[in-house]
């Protein structure tokens, strides 16, 4: 490993409509190292990386690859220079096989057709060289996320990647898959592939990185090695203030049951049973966590509870009353608060203003409606009060929610849902895609609601979130709740195993 950098950025600046996304960034990547790029959402990590792989052009500054100054005008040039990026949202064509996905854009051809035999040989050779493999004929949409990611890595290797950028690669992975990924990353680094690892998970950085660059507000805050720092000080650098990791240290009060699902089965849109015979209850002042890998029935379960999806069999009981299916308003009026999984699709009406979004559940009632007419004044007053109380940072109540940051959008949803005196909160992936500061905020709000006596059902694929908040933990696997663990007995490894394999844990 010589000290010559494979990639060097000097004084890179980029602004969008007058907003600085990167200002004077210097960055060095050594050959065969795993370099973590740490920063909150909006710190400018993605912008920086998009400039390296040709999706954006810097306003100022220079990019050197292998010591030569380069202009990277489009992704094709980046590929030729050996820069490969694995995006957070995979760039995989779902209906294609792994093989087709890997060769797309660099297909070996005979005179007229694609030379699949040659492609197959090349992929087998790569497998041998790097020591991990994939099934070239599997249709990618049927593959687990971890394997899809491996296809992405193969795509880069196939193009003889020298610099591999991984954008939040662990966000969608289970602990086991994350371990596998790290093993692959180390192997690649040993074969002198240089890796940039973008993340905001501190634990992973400490675990795998050779060096760490911290970014804040578009600028480099520091370059460290994991030996000379710890998670706390990294967090401080990243956010610029002290941060307390929220945890639920109060034991649950055994109040009365606010919510109960009994024998609940729900079908997916494609017709098969996505949730099978699920029973559980949530009591006052209790947080029940449902852990699981995405796509194991969480969406169907939460939609059924929210009244958005038909129930095949079983009952939903809210504060002692059996609720009719497909009646979201009745659920809300009986005390349901709902943070949906996809806030852009189901949580907000994007072109509407903040104020309008805040009365989506109550617009038909006093004081927001009088007979047939809306009361604009009441709506705006309500909004001003909520923006103040929930610390929503925006121009004013009439700003469109489309322009808000993810954190503020989530705050709008929380302000709407938490201001209705609900007794039961259904939170599905409430912190997905949020930065550390916003995650802390959402968690604190949830704990406050819990302290007021509401029961909370937290569905999440983030194990850390479940472990730090939930009083009792359930694991959902292929539509079944397979285990009920008290908080004490649960640890990352055994939960992760249950999430992937669905095995009942030995007591």
């Amino acid at each position, binding site marked *: 490993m010589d000290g010559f950098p494979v990639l060097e950025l000097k004084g890179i600046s980029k602004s969008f409509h007058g907003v600085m996304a990167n200002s004077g960034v210097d960055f060095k990547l050594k050959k065969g190292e795993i370099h973590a790029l740490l920063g909150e959402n909006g710190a400018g990590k993605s912008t920086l990386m998009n400039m390296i792989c040709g999706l954006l052009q810097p306003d100022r500054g220079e990019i050197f690859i292998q010591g030569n100054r380069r202009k990277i005008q489009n*992704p094709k040039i980046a*590929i030729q220079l050996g820069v490969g990026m694995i995006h957070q949202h995979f760039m995989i*064509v779902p*209906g294609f096989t792994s093989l*087709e996905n890997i*060769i797309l854009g660099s297909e070996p051809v005979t005179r007229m057709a694609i030379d699949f035999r040659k492609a197959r040989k090349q992929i087998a050779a790569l497998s041998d060289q790097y020591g991990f493999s994939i099934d070239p004929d599997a249709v990618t949409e049927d593959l687990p996320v971890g*394997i899809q990611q491996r296809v992405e890595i193969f795509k880069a290797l196939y193009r003889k990647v020298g610099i591999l950028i991984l954008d939040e690669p662990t966000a969608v992975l289970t602990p086991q898959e994350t371990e596998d990924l790290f093993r692959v990353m180390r192997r690649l680094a040993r074969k002198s592939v240089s890796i940039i690892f973008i993340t905001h998970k501190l634990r992973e950085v400490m675990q795998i990185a050779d060096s760490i660059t911290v970014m804040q507000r578009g600028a480099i805050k520091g370059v460290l090695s994991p030996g000379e720092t710890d998670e706390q000080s990294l967090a401080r650098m990243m956010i610029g203030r002290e941060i307390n990791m929220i945890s639920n240290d109060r034991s649950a009060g055994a109040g009365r049951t606010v919510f109960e699902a009994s024998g609940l089965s729900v079908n997916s849109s494609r017709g098969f049973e996505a949730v099978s015979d699920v029973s559980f209850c949530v009591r006052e002042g209790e947080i029940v966590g449902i852990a699981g890998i995405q796509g194991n029935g969480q969406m169907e379960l939460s939609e059924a509870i929210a009244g958005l999806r038909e129930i095949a069999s079983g009952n939903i009981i809210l504060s002692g009353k059996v609720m009719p299916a497909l009646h979201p308003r009745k659920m809300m009026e009986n005390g349901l608060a709902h943070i949906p999984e996809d806030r852009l699709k189901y949580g907000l009406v994007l072109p509407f203003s903040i104020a309008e979004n805040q009365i989506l559940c109550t617009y038909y009632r006093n004081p927001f409606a009088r007979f047939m007419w809306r009361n604009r004044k009441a709506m705006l007053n309500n909004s001003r009060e909520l923006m103040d109380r929930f610390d929503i940072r925006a121009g004013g109540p009439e700003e469109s929610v489309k322009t808000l940051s993810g954190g503020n959008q989530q705050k709008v949803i929380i302000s709407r849902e938490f201001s209705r005196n609900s007794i039961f909160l259904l939170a599905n992936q409430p912190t997905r895609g949020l930065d550390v500061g916003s995650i802390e905020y959402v968690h604190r709000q949830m704990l406050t609601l819990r302290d007021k006596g509401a029961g909370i059902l937290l569905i999440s694929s983030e194990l850390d979130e479940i472990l730090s908040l939930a009083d009792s933990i359930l694991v959902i696997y292929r539509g079944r709740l397979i285990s009920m663990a008290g908080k004490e007995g649960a640890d990352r490894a055994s939960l992760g195993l249950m999430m992937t394999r669905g095995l009942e844990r030995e007591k």
Partner: protein
Amino acid sequence: MMAVSRLRPGARGEMLCVFLWISVTACIVCSYWISPVVTVAVLSSALRQSTPLVLGAMCGLLSERSGVMNIGIEGQMLMAAFWGFLMHVWTGSLMMGVISGLAAGAFAGFLFAWMSVSMKMDQIIAGTIINILAVGLTGFFYPTGMSSAGKLKIYSVPLLSEIPLAGPVLFRMSPIVFLTICIVFLLHYCLFYSRWGLRTRATGEHPKAAATMGISVVKLRYGNIMIGGCIAGLAGAFLSLESVGVFERGMTNGRGFIALAVMIFGKWTPIGAWGAALLFGLSMSVQTQLQFDRVLSLPHQFTGMLPYLITIIVLAIFIRRNRPPASLGVSCERE
């Protein structure tokens, strides 16, 4: 890795298709046994009737496989039929007529691509504009009293055309009908085995993935839409230069839209669409024959309904099971 065992989606639909074709073939053989002359006439007519539908479907397929919803096929066909006929009359050359038709179709395709790909206009609206434009332009500039200068001749392949049943149907036909069959197989091969095909399908399913792999989504879509325009142009040329011999106002008569249905029924594959179009063509020619023969004492309004009835039934059965390209109708944004 876990093996997921489940019935392949669409397997039931395919079985239905096979069943349908077996029964149709059985009917043809039976009727040939009863009356060879009528059967040959009906089948050749079916092939002719299906030609503009097949070509229209290929046009739609080319653009939809790359992710652009194209409802302007009708307009592209109409403009080509008009311009091809005019050029034929002015130059006196059928060849010039056909080539001008292709050019007109490609130009209409270019216009459509400019609106939907470059200007990122809603693709339905862009297609509608093409259709309205075609009706308006051809209607306005249509010179009355222009007489035909002949049409493309039927060509018999020596020897092969002597085979009973298949010979007169498959080897005694006009050039565009023959070309159409070639286009179907060529397109099918290219779409599923060539580099261009892989890139086209990738662009239709996930344009961003294609873009990050260095494929120019815009260029590819322009290319595909314009080639599609040429093919729609051929359909137009078929109508005015081969089938009818003159241009008439609105002579495409909804074929561009039936072509869309045919494409969907054929699951966005060339051979599938061809099979579907043949079925429609067959139903049309059977309907004509029924009116002609008066074998059934049905009012002609009822027999006339047959092709449309089949469209509705077939679409009601199949359309739900068919999955369009995932990014159909979404214009690709570069950040």
